[in-house]
């Protein structure tokens, strides 16, 4: 219900309706899809962490759609994998690139029950502490957060039928 109102909100304010429309289109179907292909529906969203003040003075962190952002602002890239089938989805590996113009924030990738590895080229992945990049002269060095161009979640267990796995990382708009 909450996310529905968020999408309605995008539709109201965002001239670029395609993304929102695509998101609606890709929303989990009510009935299970084919058991072989199309079990997992993958949805990405750009969100922003917002501290929402409640009437009683407390505040809570919520994720709001980040349809439009300003340079220097932080965007939470959220990928949701939903298994619409009646069988578990196994050996799930999710790759999400760090978008152009954005800089990965160190240690910001999260996703319960998954091994998280990073890549500087979108091909070879390694844990953050083992990731290397290359200097201009070709010599290798330890990679920095700014080198990261893609994040991979390798799930340690299956996604149960009708369940979701949520992966997130944060990046700053240059």
């Amino acid at each position, binding site marked *: 219900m909450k996310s529905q109102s968020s999408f309605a*909100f995008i539709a109201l304010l965002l001239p670029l309706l395609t*993304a929102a429309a695509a998101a609606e289109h890709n929303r989990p179907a009510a009935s299970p899809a084919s058991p072989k292909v199309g079990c997992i*529906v993958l949805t990405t969203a750009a969100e*922003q962490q917002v501290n929402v003040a409640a009437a009683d003075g407390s505040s809570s962190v919520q994720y709001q759609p980040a349809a439009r*952002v300003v340079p220097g602002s932080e965007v939470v890239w959220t990928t949701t994998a939903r298994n619409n089938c009646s069988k578990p989805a*196994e050996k*799930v590996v*999710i790759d*999400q690139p760090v978008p152009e113009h954005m800089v990965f924030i160190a240690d910001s990738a999260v996703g319960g029950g998954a091994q998280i590895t990073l890549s500087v080229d979108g091909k070879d992945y390694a844990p953050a502490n083992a990731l290397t990049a290359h200097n201009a002269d070709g010599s290798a060095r330890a990679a920095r957060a700014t080198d990261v161009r893609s994040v991979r979640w390798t799930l340690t267990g299956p996604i149960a039928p009708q369940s979701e796995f949520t992966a997130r990382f944060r990046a700053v708009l240059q």
Partner: protein
Amino acid sequence: MKTTSGIWLVTAGVAALLCARQGFAAGTAAGTAITNTAQVNYTVGASTATATSNTTTTTVLQILDVVETVQTPSVAVTPGDLKKPLTFRITNTGNGPDTFVLTPSSTLAGDNFDPVLVAPSSIYFDTDNSGDYSAGDVAYVAGADLTLAANATVTVFVLNNIPTGLNNADEGRSQIGATRKGGAGTAGQTIVGGGVGGIDAVFGSSGDTATQFGKYVVANNVTMSAVKTQTFSDLLGGTRPLPGATITYSVAITPGGTGTATAATFNDAIPANTTYKPGSIKLNGTTLTDAAGDDAGEYLSAPAAHISVTLGNLTQASGVQTVSFAVTIN
């Protein structure tokens, strides 16, 4: 009702995020579409499958921000100087083209005098990129649009005339303001459709207005004039310049202008064919010794015979200083 709360939440979010962006210049161009597509590989039973997500698109808003710096925080002037420039740099630190209006002012608080903005144009662009106000520089027409691309900088000069009748070290301030043509705002405030290509614009930390001042400082401009007179006293009790006669020189030193002459010293050579008369140095009527170090006066025989009197710090208020000494004609 739902929509209203949604707008409020996102507005709060933008404001909060803006706080974190200080120190960023320009950044990704306004209107840029940031897209992202994720991919998943998995197996169900014995089958392997791949799926691609929707493509998320986020549009970069236009930030309205400006920074101004004064390149010449302090300029030395002399009272009565004309067309003295102060130099400023104005940079569009937003991420899209932005139009500003420039406003000079020289009637500011916190100084000793008001410089006078040059008429009809007090603002000039550094058209020839010389870094200095020069003949090829073009005047800014009051109220005209100044459009700067993202991260573009313009150097401008503010010209003032300096009044007369000022004291040394007096300060006069003059400033220039650069403000968004449509008006300044508050950080985080959104102008719907106010950005390049009709996207929304958000005011950065400056509120899209910046003002800096520079100052003119009246430089040390002290003047010193000296008038020398001589009187003769011959051995016969007359006033003829005969051998053995005494010549008494008297030099009246008058400080003028503005400022302070620090550690002023008066030196005068003993004329040829004369001999210094020991113990004859006087300053303002007070006799000084010939020896060095014990008082303000001394006589030196080498390299060329001369007397030297230390006058100290002199200003116009010090008044006339009179040094006298005597020689005898060989």
